[in-house]
């Protein structure tokens, strides 16, 4: 298990370095010279060369990349060309919002999805299954922003149950913080919940038809024991893989959701930076999101090996 973990972490590190190269080269190949942009239109060629030297742009690409990498690892992501604020600081204030939102949405999606999926399997060919199928279809096909607008209109404006916008730091006031995040999290988690519902239903139908479930029934085990320990436990193997693949969608969905509910998260920061052509911020945000993807994948791989013992121990012994 330790060996397996070490290998997976090594793979993640290599992925991160490769991704950082792609991001670095990507930003460098955008049209326009940052030095020229900074110096202004009236600047002398000497002044531009001076700025270029200050930024290290006259160094070879490889040296520039290594400097960039060193800065990344020391937490120096440069300064915003728009506000002059340190990018690290900007990310430090916005990232938690997105993380809380995504985690909350994930929790909502998993709980709702697994429950609906299991319900559908339990009552095959009856009302609950039909209901679950319809909900899953709606969740998959109605776009996030539309659902968000409807929810604001109905639940926030008309009924006044939830705030339409705003953010309270979850750590300093957990109750109000989660209350403010509830509507966005439910909206963000909807499509993932739909995917999980379908997948849970399909996997549960499959596992509940396996020989070992029949054998468990022949042992005289109770229904809940069979459902969770034999059925759900083995369905999780597929489910975790699917959830891991879909988590990326959650992050991109967060950008839209934050916009609708005016949450001061990474999504809002990204949009603002793109509109202002704030390259250091864009570069940093892309880097952070990439890192998030890599960490999620690492977590899924490790979790997968916990759930599926055949991966952990490898070769069978007679």
């Amino acid at each position, binding site marked *: 298990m330790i060996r397996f973990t070490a290998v997976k972490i090594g793979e993640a590190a290599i992925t991160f370095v490769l991704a950082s190269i792609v991001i670095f080269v990507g930003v460098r190949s955008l049209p326009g010279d940052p030095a020229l942009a900074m110096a202004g239109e009236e600047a002398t060629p000497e002044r531009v060369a001076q700025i270029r030297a200050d930024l290290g742009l006259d160094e070879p690409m490889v040296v520039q990349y290594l400097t960039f990498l060193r800065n990344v690892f020391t937490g120096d992501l440069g300064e915003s060309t728009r506000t002059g604020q340190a990018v690290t600081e900007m990310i430090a204030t916005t990232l938690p919002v997105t993380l809380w939102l995504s985690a909350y949405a994930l929790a909502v999606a998993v709980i709702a999805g697994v429950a609906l999926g299991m319900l559908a399997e339990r009552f095959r060919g009856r009302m609950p299954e039909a209901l679950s199928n319809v909900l899953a279809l709606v969740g998959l096909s109605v776009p996030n922003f539309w659902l968000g607008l409807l929810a604001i209109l109905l639940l926030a404006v008309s009924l006044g149950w939830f705030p339409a916008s705003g953010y309270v730091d979850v750590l300093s006031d957990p109750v109000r913080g989660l209350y403010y995040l509830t509507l966005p999290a439910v909206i963000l988690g909807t499509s993932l919940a739909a995917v999980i519902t379908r997948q849970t239903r399909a996997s549960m139908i499959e596992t509940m038809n396996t020989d070992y479930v*029949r054998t468990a029934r*022949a*042992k005289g*085990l*109770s229904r809940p024991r069979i459902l969770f320990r034999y059925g759900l*436990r083995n369905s999780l193997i597929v489910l975790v893989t699917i959830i891991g693949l879909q988590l990326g969608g959650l992050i991109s969905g967060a950008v839209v959701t934050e916009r609708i509910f005016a949450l001061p998260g990474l999504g809002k920061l990204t949009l603002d930076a793109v509109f202002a052509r704030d390259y250091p911020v864009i570069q940093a945000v892309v880097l952070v999101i990439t890192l998030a993807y890599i960490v999620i994948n690492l977590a899924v791989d490790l979790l997968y090996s916990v759930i599926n013992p055949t991966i952990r121990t490898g070769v069978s012994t007679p």
Partner: protein
Amino acid sequence: MADPTAAATPVLEVSGLTVAYGDTEVLRDVSFTLAPGERLGIVGESGSGKSTAVSAVLGLLAGDGHVTGGSIRFRGEEIAGVPEARMRQLRGRSIALIPQDPMTNLNPSMRVGDQIADALRAYGTRGRAAVRAHVVRLMTEAGIPEAERRRRQFPHEFSGGMRQRVLIAMALAGDPDLIIADEPTSALDVTVQKQILDHLQKLVDDRGMSLLFVTHDLGVAADRTDQIVVMHRGAVAEQGGPAQVLFDPQDDYTRELIAASPKLVVPPRDGADDTGDPVLEVRDLTRVYPLRGRREELRALDGVTFTAARGRTTAIIGESGSGKSTTARIVLGLETATSGEVVVDGTSTTSSTRADLARLRRFAQPVFQDPYSSLNPTMSVERIILEPLTIFRVGTKTQRRARVAELLDQVALPRSVADARPGELSGGQRQRVAIARAIASRPELLVCDEAVSALDVLVQDQILTLLRSLQEELGLSCLFISHDLAVVADFAHDVVVMRSGRIVEQGPVDRVIDHAEHEYTQALIAAVPGDQLTRV
């Protein structure tokens, strides 16, 4: 062996049982009685309803299956159609199941000890230490060494035989009155099968339990039970003591079954004499696989040397892991050898060019074990058989189509199946299609890898008859890979016995079977069930 008449109440009394899936009746008027301490064998081929009968007794009919008539009495209590809660009390505690396939009947994500403990807790054992001690005791009794350590392992760390022992330990956990063993060893090697059946029999005898033994193998049933029920198409064809059923069968189907069951006797046979002209020479073949994450490697084949004579059937026999299928795959050019040489029809294929390989493919054709997965389900039978003809550019389009019709005749299939897809055919029909495809390009060597192992005995007998007549008609040579010594005795001319990648013995089939020299061959022969069957 208890005397059935001495017992007052039978353990199990099934009378007039009728079961349907939806509107389709699959079991009709099935009756049998099992006295305390008695062993009853239910014998039948796939689809005969034997497993449905077992599921009905356990109240575990799949999908929309339901009992439509008759009764099932357990110790005098009617259990057909009782509420699920009552059935759950009986399952495991009073009626336990040893299921068929040890590979699929254990929860893959749960330690084996926990799976046995699960049952114990359901039957009321409390306390961690007590449960653990009981698990270890049950595993030890079922014949699992180092139970204390192995209870913490997962199913995939167990061999098939050891998994079956776990399932037996599970069935014993509730100290039931009746054990239902549903083909408990059909997925295992014969030597393992014998050990497990011997062990199971001892456990059941010691505890005075009754045993309902379901099997497709008449030989096993005759050796192991006091009473046999032969089932055919959902009804009881015949029942009686093993001696009566075997030596004085009343029903036509039983007679057919007995005739078709392979027996470990070498019949006199015709076929080409060994002219010393080999169609296939395998010289010092070695295949090594690296094992992932380990220093040592797996020697799947180690210095395998034998020849197959032209026009004759050479069988390779061995248990799982013996290297017999690896040998077949290398001969077919589907896998490469680490070292050694394969000479087919005088040409070495191990160092071959593409052209050599193409010639080999035309010369040697395979028939695989599982007719359900070795035919492309989206292609029609005609396209499947046409494919090799197209690849080898045999004749014109019309000639090829004519050839397909001819091939269907040869394997005794109606020409109308040409438009069918494999899914619409039975197992035996599919295997005929696989044979037609194999002989389409007029090969000289047929490599049959467990080609009849997945088939019911009657169908198996028909396919073997077909292969025999094709061999005579076309002068085919056959490399016949099998784990079944009785089939080999019946069908092959020469035999090569393999174990753990090496050849332990080889020679003409009558010599090897009647006068085995190697102790492994002798053990294999001793393990073949059906002692009584041989005497029929």
